[in-house]
């Protein structure tokens, strides 16, 4: 169900009173929030095509890296998109370095999940889509193919997968939205 975030639906507010955000999964009337929590729930309820590895150590690694991406890559990416001047330069540098660190988690595999995509691919793959589009919009280099050749290749392969293609937002709409959003952020930045 599509939410229009400036006017949150009463249902969303009822199902996620703590954070009032999407995504929210409602299964048999019971709501769950927090993206990674939801993915783990899905994996545990629908046990075919497991997303997380079976071995506890490999599960721990996948969770570790998903947390790393959420805490170290995503905020830097948003700052690189929304800031200007030196702040933007620093944020983009931080992002590129943290993506380099994330690349080490591939460990020479095709996908983080191995031969097929898994939990970590799903958790971080969207960064490739967002960053590629928004480095143009914000005029800053986010994905440095020379610095992260393996991750760069993985982003490409991941985003080309039919199952991922089905779930990507319409790219022209997304671009228009991001351009608009960026304009607003720049206006706000100019005022401070």
């Amino acid at each position, binding site marked *: 169900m599509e939410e229009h975030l400036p006017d949150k639906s009463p249902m969303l507010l009822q199902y996620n009173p703590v954070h009032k955000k999407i995504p929210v999964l409602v299964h048999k009337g019971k709501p*769950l929030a927090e993206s990674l929590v939801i993915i783990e729930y899905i994996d*545990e309820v629908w046990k075919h095509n497991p997303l997380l590895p079976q071995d506890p*150590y490999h599960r721990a*690694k996948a969770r*570790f890296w998903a947390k*790393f991406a959420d805490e170290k890559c995503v905020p830097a990416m948003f700052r690189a998109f929304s800031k200007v001047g030196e702040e933007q330069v620093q944020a983009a540098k931080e992002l590129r370095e943290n993506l380099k660190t994330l690349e080490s988690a591939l460990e020479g595999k095709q996908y983080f999940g191995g031969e097929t995509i898994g939990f970590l691919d799903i958790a971080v793959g969207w960064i490739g889509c967002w960053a590629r589009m928004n480095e143009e919009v914000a005029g800053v280099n986010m994905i440095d193919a020379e610095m992260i050749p393996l991750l760069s290749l993985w982003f490409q392969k991941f985003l080309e997968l039919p199952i991922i293609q089905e779930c990507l937002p319409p790219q022209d709409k997304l671009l228009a939205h991001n351009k608009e959003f960026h304009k607003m952020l720049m206006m706000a930045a100019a005022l401070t």
Partner: protein
Amino acid sequence: MREYSYFIPLPLQAATMAEEVKLFGKWISPFSRRIEVALKLKGVEYEYIEEDLVNKSPALLNYNPVHKKIPVLVHNGKPIAESLVIMEYIDETWKHNPILPIDPFEKAMARFWAKFIDDKFWAIWPAVKKALTSGGEKEREEGIEEAQLHLNTLETQLKEKKFFGGERLGFVEISASLIIWIVVSQEVMGVEILTQEKFPALHKLTQKFVEDDVFKQCVPPWEPLVAYFKAQLGALAASK
């Protein structure tokens, strides 16, 4: 209703399985202390290594090159970092006395609340430190106010969730044991932040901790904590 199986006190596990379990931690870190709670609840024997965070050991840097932080659990040579990730690993590796609920929805809720508590703690603890180590009255008051603001969010959310209804102390409670550091620290320094009147649910939780046989082994030690805060106060005064 949480689904927990019976808590069965078990003899120390590792001795029979010839495993090597090491925990790199810091006595004053609530994040490494709660890993000790989890290991003790499971009856897992472990070697504890106290880290000097100013001079990090080569072992720590080797085992956690990404963040270079404690806690790090090393099980048969394999390192796991990040407090909540470690707790899940412990629960999945030593399956008796489960910490997480068995039901997927309850499990997801436990993960959600543990993350919520962790995120809140990062806002609360600096405010508490400010309240406890500021030389000036005004700064102390500001620290107290800020800490109470965030504690209030925690209190409101947790009060409704009935996590403290059961007998067992599980994943959420172990995660929330961070709170006990606030309670002990404020007592040590004679400042009132987390009071019973303002925060009855949180207060009740800390009481459960100090009464529990396992948790109370991991409660912050009084004397070293006094020394720690007095040193912080001293350092602050010296820099002014």
